[in-house]
């Protein structure tokens, strides 16, 4: 079909040859979707150039113009085609079967895990090109996701009644049971994510009397399996790989499949025919509890302000942690010197941390300490010594007096908060 890009060597040659009489017209023909012509012969025979139409955006965000000539023809074509939405629109009007997916929708958006799962659902649905199945997503609560179709969803059942909010496994399970009654999907796929699909999926499985496959990370077509698929699932606390036929309910791990990125789908909204009975819940959600960041266990904390030998004013450090809302950590030396409690020690001999942001103040970065922060996403270092190991590890390092920098940061945050309060 048309997705096969066919090259026309002659036209490309003309495109490269600026002196060819058909140069401009070929360029125009290649740059189909508004690719501006950068050079043309003006009405009075003068060659005109449009510098804005050429060049590309470099990796650091600066526009670069490549004068080697590569820019002119084929290259421009490539960039324009990639800018254009090359994704195929796929609509499945008469699905042979349904694959139900219940994404987590963390924070109202499809998470990476959700998208992987939808990719898996697409694989299952599209296995037989003659009789494709449709992917139906059951969404709970309000969502801000616009790209449902792009993620590979054919049908959407959106349930945003307030009794699904928070921790409402019973209500959600009742809704899924209703979907089961009305649509009877061939497969139910959920993300095996703690406090999301892992919980709901297991509830659904036992409700449906299915022995769910959990921790699925691979599926393969298998004609001998009852449903045509075989899956590999993690078992025994991650120590085993279990190969078994794919059951009706499967809970899959992140990266179980590639997310959909070549097709777009209808994401057509469906409503359930029967109104759902309001179940009397035996579990009442009293809402989230305010947690003092200082009391959060280091291993769980998402933002850690960690102090070491370079800290001279510990009061200011504690104040900064409070203002920033960070959990406090410390290097071994700071703990040994008695400035911090032992349970605050970060490192191989203390706690291994997994923070999203780890801010190391006055810590030079002994190997044991760096080992302990391996799994942190972003490391910010404030240190006087530009040559220390922590600076080498850091994503952002500021060389200077830590007390002043912290004070400035605290002032900045307080000012920002103050401003917001004034505005509100």
């Amino acid at each position, binding site marked *: 079909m048309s997705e096969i890009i066919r090259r026309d060597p002659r036209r490309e040659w003309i495109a490269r040859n600026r002196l060819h009489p058909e140069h401009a017209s070929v360029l125009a023909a290649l740059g189909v979707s508004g690719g501006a012509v950068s050079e043309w012969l003006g009405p009075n025979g003068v060659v005109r150039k449009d510098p804005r139409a050429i060049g590309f955006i470099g990796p650091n965000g600066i526009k670069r113009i490549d004068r080697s000539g590569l820019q002119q023809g084929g290259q421009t074509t490539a960039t324009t085609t990639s800018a254009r939405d090359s994704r195929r629109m796929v609509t499945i009007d008469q699905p042979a079967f349904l694959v139900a997916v219940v994404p987590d929708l963390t924070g109202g958006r499809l998470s990476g895990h959700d998208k992987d799962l939808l990719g898996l659902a697409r694989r299952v649905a599209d296995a037989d090109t003659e009789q494709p199945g449709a992917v139906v997503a059951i969404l709970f609560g309000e969502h801000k996701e616009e790209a449902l179709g792009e993620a590979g969803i054919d049908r959407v059942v959106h349930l945003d009644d307030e009794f699904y909010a928070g921790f409402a496994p*019973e209500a959600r399970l009742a809704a899924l049971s209703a979907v089961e009654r009305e649509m009877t999907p061939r497969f139910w796929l959920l993300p095996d994510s703690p406090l999301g699909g892992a919980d709901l999926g*297991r509830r659904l499985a036992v409700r449906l009397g299915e022995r769910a496959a959990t921790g699925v990370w691979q599926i393969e077509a298998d004609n001998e399996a009852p449903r045509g698929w075989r899956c590999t699932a993690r078992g025994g606390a991650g120590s085993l790989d279990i190969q078994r036929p794919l059951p009706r309910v499967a809970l899959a791990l992140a990266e179980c499949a590639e997310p959909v990125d070549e097709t777009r789908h209808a994401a057509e909204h469906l409503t359930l025919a029967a109104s759902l009975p309001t179940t009397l819940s035996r579990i*009442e959600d009293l809402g989230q509890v305010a947690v003092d960041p200082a009391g959060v266990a280091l291993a769980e904390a998402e933002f850690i302000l960690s102090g070491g030998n370079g800290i001279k004013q510990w009061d200011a450090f504690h104040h900064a942690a409070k203002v920033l809302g960070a959990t406090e950590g410390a290097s071994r030396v700071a703990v040994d010197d008695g400035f911090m409690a032992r349970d605050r020690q970060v490192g191989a001999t203390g706690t291994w941390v997994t923070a999203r942001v780890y801010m190391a103040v006055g810590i030079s970065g002994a190997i044991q300490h760096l080992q302990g922060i391996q799994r942190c996403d972003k*490391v910010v270092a404030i240190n006087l010594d530009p040559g220390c190991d922590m*600076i080498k590890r850091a994503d952002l*390092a500021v*060389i200077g007096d830590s007390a002043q*920098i912290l004070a*400035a940061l605290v002032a900045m945050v307080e000012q920002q908060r103050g401003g917001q309060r004034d505005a509100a």
Partner: protein
Amino acid sequence: MRPDQQQKQQQQGIDVAVLVSIGRHPTTGRARRAEQDARGLELALSMEAELPGTRISMLHAGPQGDGSEAALRGYLGMATGVGMGLESMTLLEQPEGSDAIPALAAHLAATSPQLVITGARAERGEGSGLLPYALAEHLGWPLVNSLASVEKVENGVVTLLQALPRGQRRRLKVRLPAIISVDEAAPAARQSAFGPARRATFAITPTTPEADSELAQWHLAPARKRPKRLKIVKAASARDRFKAAASKAEGKGGQVLTDVTPEQGAEAIYKLLKEEEVLR
């Protein structure tokens, strides 16, 4: 403590059953007390400290053997201190490869504890984590997963804190009887002591075992390392692919700000904190 108050507290005490399994050490594979189940028992023990009169019973379904006994004694060794009635564990005896769910469900239905605590998933065998859900469905009890702590028990309603990611907590009220499952977010289990572990006994109850025939058909193998997902580069030409690869390598090094005023440094940090959404 005034007597009436004491009496009231004693009324609060409830029957707690803790389900324990035989764990597996991740590096050596040796039998041990399972991490999550031990946390479950720890939760029960801390409940006992808070609510006098709480009675804890431990339950395990599986075969009898030296290896498993040593692992189970790991739980019994947690009964340190005075006045903890954990000198015995009920062992629902069934051969290896039996389905534990029917035996446990039958026993729980018969003994009817008000609260059942279990680890989220087993460290051996299938380890699917379906067991607590299957029991809840069998018994028709509500289930709460990922528990952090039990706050109080009042008039047949238990107030719990459920662990959310990143140290956050959610408060729930659940009508008893109920099943709660714990994972790594629950408080770490106390040390198991040799003395109480050695003294404890097993109350062995025979069951009518049901073989887990489905599991027997599956193919179990030591876990393979999962392939690491590569960053997918959508590029039409080799030049684009090269550029993408090169820009990645470039972005690896961190940004180092030297000779800046404290304010400039703070601003750069502030920007990063905002981007990472850690400032609340």
